[in-house]
C-alpha cells in the first residue's frame, strides 16, 4: 500500500500537502470568522495574474503571484474602508480585476502548460525551491498564529472592542492580509489557484459543526485539512486523479454528512 512513498515526487507532495494543510485552515479560520470567505477566491484568482506576469517577465511565477496578491489584498482593504457598508463589493471588484488581468496576460505567455498547472495545481511536480518556500511560509504563519492567537480571536469576534482594549488591530490586520496573500500564492502552485479558497473554507466549516470552543475550531480545522490532504493524495495516486481536485472533493464528501449530523 505504501509503495506511494517510493517516489521522491510523492514524498515532496506529501510534505508540501501536509504543511499547506496546517497553514491554509489557520488563515481560513480568520477569513471565515471575519465573514470574508470570498477573499481567498479573490486573491487566488488575482494570483493567476501574478503567475502570468512572472512567466512573461521570466521570473519565478510564485514570486509574481505573491507581489500581485499583496497589492490585491491591500486594495481590498482600501476599498472596504472606502465603502464600509458594502465590504463584499471590494472582493468582487478585485476578483474581477484579477481574472480580467490574468486572462489578458495569459495571451502573452509562450508556455501555456506552465500557466495551466497553476489553475488546478500540480502538487506532484513541485521543485525543491518551492518546497523551501512552503517550509518558510509555514514557519512564519504558524509562529504568527500562535503568538497572536488571543489577539486574532478578539479581532475576529469584536473588532471595535479589540481597538478599545488596546489590541493593535491595524498592525495585526496588516500582517494577516500579508500572510493571506503569501499563503494563497504558494498554495496556488500545489493545490491550484481555483481550489485554494475551498481548502481555506471547507475544513473550517467541518470544524464548526463539531467544535465546542474556538480552540477546538482551530485544531479541528487543521485536523480536517490534514485528513482531506492525505486521503486526497492517496486517492489521486491510486485512482489516477488530479490531486488538488481530489483533496477538495474529499473535503466536500466529509462536510455534507457533518452538516446533517449537526442539524439533528
Amino acid at each position, binding site marked *: 500500500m505504501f509503495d506511494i512513498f517510493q517516489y521522491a515526487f510523492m514524498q515532496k507532495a506529501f510534505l508540501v500537502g501536509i504543511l499547506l494543510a496546517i497553514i491554509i485552515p489557520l488563515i481560513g479560520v480568520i477569513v471565515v*470568522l471575519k*465573514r470574508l470567505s470570498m477573499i481567498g477566491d479573490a486573491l487566488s484568482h488575482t494570483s493567476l495574474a501574478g503567475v502570468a506576469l512572472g512567466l512573461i517577465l521570466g521570473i519565478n511565477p510564485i514570486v509574481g503571484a505573491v507581489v500581485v496578491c499583496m497589492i490585491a489584498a491591500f486594495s481590498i482593504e482600501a476599498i472596504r474602508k472606502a465603502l464600509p457598508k458594502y465590504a463584499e463589493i471590494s472582493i468582487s471588484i478585485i476578483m474581477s480585476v484579477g481574472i480580467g488581468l490574468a486572462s489578458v496576460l495569459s495571451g502573452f505567455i509562450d508556455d501555456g502548460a506552465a500557466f495551466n498547472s497553476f489553475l488546478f495545481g500540480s502538487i506532484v511536480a513541485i521543485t525543491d525551491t518551492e518546497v523551501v518556500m512552503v517550509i518558510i511560509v509555514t514557519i512564519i504563519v504558524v509562529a504568527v498564529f500562535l*503568538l*497572536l*492567537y*488571543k*489577539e486574532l*480571536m*478578539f479581532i*475576529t*469576534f*469584536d473588532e*471595535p*472592542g*479589540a*481597538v*478599545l*482594549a*488596546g*489590541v*493593535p488591530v491595524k498592525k495585526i490586520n496588516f500582517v494577516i492580509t500579508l500572510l493571506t496573500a503569501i499563503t494563497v500564492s504558494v498554495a496556488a502552485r500545489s493545490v491550484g489557484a481555483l481550489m485554494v479558497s475551498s481548502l481555506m473554507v471547507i475544513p473550517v466549516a467541518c470544524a*464548526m459543526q463539531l*467544535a*465546542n*470552543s*474556538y*480552540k477546538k*475550531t482551530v485544531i479541528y480545522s487543521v485536523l480536517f485539512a490534514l485528513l482531506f490532504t492525505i486521503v486526497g493524495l492517496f486517492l489521486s495516486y491510486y485512482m489516477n486523479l488530479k490531486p488538488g481536485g481530489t483533496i477538495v472533493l474529499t473535503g466536500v464528501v466529509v462536510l455534507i454528512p457533518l452538516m446533517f449530523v449537526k442539524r439533528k
Partner: protein
Amino acid sequence: MVSFWKEWLSMDNIMIEVKDMSFGYGKDAILSNVNFIVKRQEYVGIIGSNGAGKSTLMRLLLGQLTPSEGEVNVHTKAIGYVPQVGFREVSNFPANVEEIVLTGLYKQIGMFHMPKKEHKQKVKQVLELVGMQDFRTRMLSEMSGGQQQRVLIARALIGDPELLVLDEPLTGIDKEAGETLYLLLDKLNKEYGMTIVMVTHNREQVAKYTNRFYHVTNGGVHLDKSSVLCDEVMKDKMIIAKPKRYSSHGGTGKIHSVEVEKEAPYDASYKGAKKEENK
C-alpha cells in the same frame, strides 16, 4: 446648599464631560454643539430613533471617533463596553463563554501571553455575578439573546471597569430576559457604584431604571424632563455621593429613597465600590 452643589459638580465627581462638541461639519453635522455631563455612579440613558446620532455619540464617548469641534472628556480609562448581540458576527461566533469573557482581560494578560489560572478563576467569579456560572463551557452560539448579553456584560465587568457603556442591550432579547438584564444593571449601579451609560431606543425601560436620560434628536442632545425631577429629589434629600433615583422598582413613578452606602458594598475589588469605600 451652595457647598452641596459645589461638591456635587466638582470635577472629582464627574465621569464624562462633553463641552460644545460637534461631529461633522455644516449641513452634514451629525451632532452640533452638544453639552452634558455624567457624574460618577450615575446610571444614564441615551435614547433616540434610528439614525439620530446616538451610536455616533457612543463612539465619541468610547474614543472611537474624534469630535470635529469641542471636547469629550472621559475621566477614566477603565471602560467596559458591551456591544449589540443582534449582529451575526457576535451571536454565531464559535467560541465558548470562558473564551469570550477572557477577551475582557486583554489588558491584564498582555500581548503574546496566554491566560493563567487566576484569570480563569476571575471568569468564574464574574459569571457568578451575572448568574451565568453554569454556562462557562457552553458555546455562545447555542445560547439565547438574553444569555449572550449577560455573557458580554460579564466580559465588560471582568476588567474592573468604572464606566460601563452598553449599546442597545435589548436588541434580540425577549421582554422577560430584558427585565432580568435591567435588574442586573440596576444592581451593578446601586450595589457596586458603577457608572452606566446605556444607548437604547426603549424609552420605557430607560425611564424606569436610569437616573436621567438624554434624547438625541436633530443633531442635538437634550436632557429629558425627568432629570429635573431627579435633581429636585437630590436637592431635597441632600444626597451627595450618589444621585437619588426615582421609580427604581415597579415603574410607577414613585420616588424611592435609597441612601448611599458608606461601607464597601459586596466585592470591594470593583473600582466603583472602592471609590465609595474611600470616601
